[in-house]
């Protein structure tokens, strides 16, 4: 991480208008799992603005290579080989170094490696479907994988998830914690998906769609998609006030 002083200011208020609301009945599972009462808001205290540091030592050599981290020696998963790369930034545009980025996905046929998964597409014996990395000092990250397949899911009678990769991101404060999903440029399934449609803001959806990035492809090996992740920004130290007792 860069040798800058740690930041101790609260995060900007979350723009809840572009995040999905809790209750979105077309995504049926939300009906019984959505809090009905208003959230109680307060500016972050030290409990929210602090967070743990995950050192690079937790990361193994192949954790960001899904082509290799589960494959038998000399073998590899079936599917289109891709590189996913991007940057973790905050709302001020500042790169977030040392962010823990975890990702998981279905295999090329749209099947997850999970006991409860019942889709008839086959498991790939050489694909685990998950990995992790820590961003460099400027917030950059990358990993290699196969492009996941679309899959049907029990919601409506014919609902399909577009091809997607799940992301869990841990920035510098516990209140920056975010889980999201990355979609792929050009996929017509994106705009049919009930889970995508939980997001009320079209521009916010577009920011989840990773463009094909031909400049980052590895020639004769894999194409690349670029996915930047923006976490909440922090207030300026200059104008930090001390709230009076209430």
């Amino acid at each position, binding site marked *: 991480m860069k040798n800058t002083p740690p930041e101790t200011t609260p995060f900007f208020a979350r723009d809840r208008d572009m995040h999905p609301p809790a209750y979105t009945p077309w995504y049926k599972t939300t*009906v*019984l799992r959505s809090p009905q009462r208003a959230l109680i808001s307060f500016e972050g*205290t030290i409990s929210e603005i*602090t*967070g743990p540091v995950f050192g690079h030592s937790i990361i193994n050599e192949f954790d960001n290579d899904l082509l290799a981290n589960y494959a038998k020696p000399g073998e590899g998963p079936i599917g289109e080989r891709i590189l996913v790369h991007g940057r973790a930034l905050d709302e001020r545009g500042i790169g977030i170094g040392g962010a823990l980025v975890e990702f998981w996905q279905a295999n090329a046929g749209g099947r*997850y490696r999970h006991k409860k998964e019942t889709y008839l597409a086959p498991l790939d014996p050489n694909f685990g479907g998950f990995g992790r990395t820590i961003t460099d000092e400027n917030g950059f990250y990358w990993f290699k994988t196969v492009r996941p397949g679309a899959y049907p899911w029990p919601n409506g009678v014919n609902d399909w998830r577009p091809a997607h990769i799940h992301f869990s991101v841990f920035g510098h404060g516990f209140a920056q914690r*975010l889980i999201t999903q990355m979609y792929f440029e050009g996929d017509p399934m994106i705009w049919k998906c009930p889970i995508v449609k939980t997001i009320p803001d079209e521009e916010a959806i577009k920011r989840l769609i990773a463009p094909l990035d031909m400049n980052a492809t590895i020639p004769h090996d894999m194409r690349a998609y670029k996915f930047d992740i923006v976490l909440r920004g922090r207030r300026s130290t200059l104008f930090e006030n001390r709230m009076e007792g*209430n």
Partner: protein
Amino acid sequence: MVQPLGYLKETASQTAGPYVHIGCTPNFTGIHGVYETDLGSGSMINDQTRGERITIRGHVYDGAGTALKDALIEIWQADAEGLYNSPSEIRGKADPNFFGWARCPGDMATGEFVFETIKPGRVPFRDGRLMAPHVNFWIVARGINIGLNTRMYFSDEEAANGEDPILSRIEHRVRVPTLIGKREGDTVTFDIHLQGDNETIFFDV
């Protein structure tokens, strides 16, 4: 026209889905050999950790009173002296034997989550008043569109709870008990209700 402010927008949240455990706790799902252990799993304490040992247990219930079997719960707390193990903690150096963060998937059969930890010390509110001891929770699962933030306070801290700046500003006093973990011996039980009469207070922080 005015100058653009130039801020980026936070990436929108999407549900963690039913398979969050593949990515965050693969060993728990039976996928071994990639990560040695699941990040944030196991006891949060060792022999040298300072503080009073406690076990936090609970369930996450949906609006029908059914315990979620697929939730993932993360907690973040101060050490016994009330210091966070974080670079943004500038009041002092936290206990090096206490990381302060952990992650627990609900049990596949019962949905129960368990954290072996210590009771945190008090930390200051923004105006310097002390907050009562509390543990910060973050809950994700299939059907939860954006991670839910809440706090667990302690039933054996009545005086501190009574002067806590967050608890005391809650208008509907009848809801305050949803934030209080019930302590019996070394066990603190904290059930989270996503809906219903006992809907837990969730925070926008």
